[in-house]
């Protein structure tokens, strides 16, 4: 793992995507490693890109207001920069406690 590697302006980079609860069920898999375009800047950009990949993603991410995300185990907002995040999670609002 080379955490200091600069993000290339073009090409792709691998990220691990993990899904939980009904987002996991709608996507159909618990996790996957995906080559994402290096130009994707924010969580919102990634959501839009994933929704265009297939009907399962479009369904899982249909309600963008309710969808939550985390970058490397830290809660993120739609406008949060993806930065060099290696693991990106999507899930519904939490119901623990």
């Amino acid at each position, binding site marked *: 793992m080379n955490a200091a590697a600069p993000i290339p302006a073009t090409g792709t980079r691998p990220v691990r995507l993990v899904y*939980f609860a009904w987002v996991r069920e709608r996507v159909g898999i618990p996790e996957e490693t995906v080559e994402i375009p290096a130009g994707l800047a924010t969580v919102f950009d990634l959501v839009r890109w994933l929704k265009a990949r297939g009907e399962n993603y479009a369904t899982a991410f249909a309600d963008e207001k309710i969808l939550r995300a985390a970058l490397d185990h830290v809660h993120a907002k739609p406008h949060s920069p993806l930065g060099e995040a290696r693991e990106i999670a999507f899930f519904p609002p939490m119901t623990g406690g």
Partner: protein
Amino acid sequence: MTPLIRIQREDFSLQDEIDALATGRADIGAVVSFTGLCRDEAGTLAALELEHYPGMAEAEIARVAGEAAARWPLLGLVAIHRYGLIRPGEQIVLVLAASAHRRAAFEAADFMMDYLKTRAPFWKREHRADGTLGGWVEARADDDDAAERWNR
């Protein structure tokens, strides 16, 4: 003061955790505990299934605990959250807050629970008594409101 955070499938014992926190110490004057139980309001629930995000669950609860420790003069802080199948009446979550005086312990325990509910990555799903799989429990707006009041 290092918060103790555990994410586990097994049950826990309130008394054992209080003993582990406070036995042999003379500086603690107050331990406040909160225990969350699985409840069955309609008599139709066989169990709650708790899914969690391993790694992030520990990290996020540790961040909340760090904020509590920065806010109140705590002498001990414990958060235990279970996952897996939990039946009505069984324990789900435990928070202990210890301090020299009661006010800090009460408030820190309250704060921990408000933020555990809105920030810790856990999701509940119902398993019904008739053997069918129920839906995912929906987040409650009043939980967000409860957490938000600490920012006022």
